[in-house]
């Protein structure tokens, strides 16, 4: 219906690889982009900086992780530690007077280098063993941050982010922070889309699917696994820094604990492994759903139809959230991205039923 493909004739190879060949998709994206750009005018401050901005930043983090887990097929259960390295590096660099742009690059590089050290384990082990190796990274990094006062600022300390300027614009006020987050997330999105349609993305998928067959066409599996760890950790580190500066505006080690790593894995899995739109949907789902549920319960409690204890209000979102993860993985292993794709395919051939790619 909306997505009719007739009338699209490719005459050049470049055109067949366009990101959004369908006009309907381009219109939808243009509309969403306009909304995202106008959001500071349209939305109250509360929604802007406590819903939209964190959603965008966590999307960037989920995109970084989906590059590693979905496209390159290497499991990582310590990604919060990667973000922590980025966050702490950027804060220390910014406090030392390094320009924010360079502090972000430094955050990415530090996270990428340390991530690669642990990623080197991935060159030897697969599957569950890799999960163990990355879990070890989570705990080691957390331990080091907490126990080295030079990094954490002392036991139980919170480091506030200093005043910084990005491209000569001071990063203060919700609008500037929001646009920074938006800019980073859009950059990550374009990067991932382009990786997926170029030779480097194909090589990563080849190593994920069949590493021996990849080797036989000249792809060095070790090199590409390490490249995936490096790139993903770099993006994760910068996302951690953006999270610290644009959302928390202060860092403590607890913000990057093991539960956050699991949350990130859940975002990637629920959203759909390796899918860009899945990262948006997954991050939104994992972040916003508990908030929506809590508000809903508070409203039900406000009706005073039956007694609702505070304990119940605290725990029901967690239970629903767990049940929904199980449901998504049971009924749609490719996640929310696949559900979106199914809906799109339905309209693609409506009023008929059989989709041809």
């Amino acid at each position, binding site marked *: 219906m909306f997505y009719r493909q007739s009338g699209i004739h490719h005459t*050049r*190879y*470049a055109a067949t*690889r366009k990101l959004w060949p369908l006009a309907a998709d381009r219109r939808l994206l243009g509309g969403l982009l306009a909304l995202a750009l106008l959001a500071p005018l349209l939305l109250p401050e509360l929604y802007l900086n406590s819903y939209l901005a964190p959603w965008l930043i966590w999307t960037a983090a989920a995109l970084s992780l989906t590059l590693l887990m979905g496209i390159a097929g290497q499991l990582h259960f310590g990604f919060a530690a990667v973000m922590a390295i980025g966050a702490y590096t950027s804060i220390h660099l910014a406090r030392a007077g390094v320009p924010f742009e360079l502090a972000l690059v430094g955050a990415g590089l530090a996270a990428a280098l340390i991530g690669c050290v642990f990623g080197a384990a991935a060159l030897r082990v697969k599957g569950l063993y890799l999960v163990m190796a990355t879990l070890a990274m989570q705990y080691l990094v957390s331990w080091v941050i907490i126990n080295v006062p030079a990094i954490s600022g002392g036991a139980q300390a919170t480091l506030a982010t200093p005043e910084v300027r990005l491209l000569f614009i001071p990063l203060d006020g919700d609008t500037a922070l929001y646009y920074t987050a938006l800019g980073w997330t859009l950059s990550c999105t*374009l*990067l991932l889309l*382009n*990786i997926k*349609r*170029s*030779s*480097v*993305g*194909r*090589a990563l*998928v*080849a190593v*994920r*699917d*069949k590493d*021996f*067959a*990849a*080797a*036989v*066409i*000249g*792809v*060095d*599996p070790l090199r590409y696994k390490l*490249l995936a760890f490096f*790139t993903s950790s770099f993006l994760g580190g910068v996302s951690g820094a953006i999270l610290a500066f644009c959302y928390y505006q202060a860092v403590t080690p607890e913000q990057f604990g093991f539960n956050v790593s699991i949350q990130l894995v859940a975002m990637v899995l629920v959203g759909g492994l*390796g899918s860009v739109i899945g990262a948006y949907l997954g991050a939104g789902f994992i972040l916003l759903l508990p908030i929506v549920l809590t508000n809903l319960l508070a409203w039900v409690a406000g009706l005073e139809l039956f007694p609702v204890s505070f304990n119940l209000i605290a725990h029901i979102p967690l239970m629903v959230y767990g049940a929904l993860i199980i449901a998504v993985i049971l009924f749609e292993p490719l996640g929310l991205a696949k559900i979106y794709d199914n809906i799109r395919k339905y309209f693609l051939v409506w009023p008929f039923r059989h989709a041809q*790619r």
Partner: protein
Amino acid sequence: MTTTRQDHDPDEVILECAAVSRWFGGLQALKGIDLHIHRGEIFGLVGPNGSGKTTLVNAITGFYPPQQGEIRYRGERISGLKPHRIARKGVARTFQNVALFRGLSVLDNILLGRHLFMRPSILGAAFYWWWAEREEVAHRGRVEEVIDLLQLESVRDEPVDVIPLGMQKRVELARALCAEPGFLVLDEPMAGMNQEEKEYMVRFILDARDAMGTTMLLIEHHMDVVTAICNRAVVLNNGEKIAEGPTREAINDPTVVAAYIGRVKDAA
């Protein structure tokens, strides 16, 4: 058909195995195999199940490096190199059980065959419009030539795991050919095919050899195919070379017949 055709060059050895031996624990899978494969020929490698054909191929392509002996490609030692280094030298192969990348489309699978000639990088992808796109388009052109040669146009955009097995084998051949290999190993390209698909495959193999001048090593159990297209053949049994020569002579050798169906005196 082509057994009489002498279009290969016996003076130029492309691949040479010298006394190649390989053990798996106490089992000696290859016992001092010597081979010379000439430029432009289709060389048959036959033998009963478990005779060491795939082990020899795995030794050549670097998955199970030989513990003794040496393998040379165009006079250069390749035994001991990692598989992707050997691929870079110009040796390609297909697998007995189709080894395609299931998460990708047919086109992307074949494009991966061009990996050796591309310079994949994250930065190149980041600046796709100014950097990677030109390369993608140039290699897409070469890939389309191979798609044309192997008649894969109709399935180009399909996910690779939904097309029939015969097509999948053809996609794997296309991926290998895209690497423009000097030496191509085909490990049972016709396993599980019906007569029609087999004949198609035979034609594609001959077309590819004629169009691209690729030297090939063919492992195959269908003797009609082997006699039809292989210039010469080697027969293995229990890791030993039991016959070698022009295809028809090699597989009619009494020791070969005995290895396949037993000796007359053993018959009940």
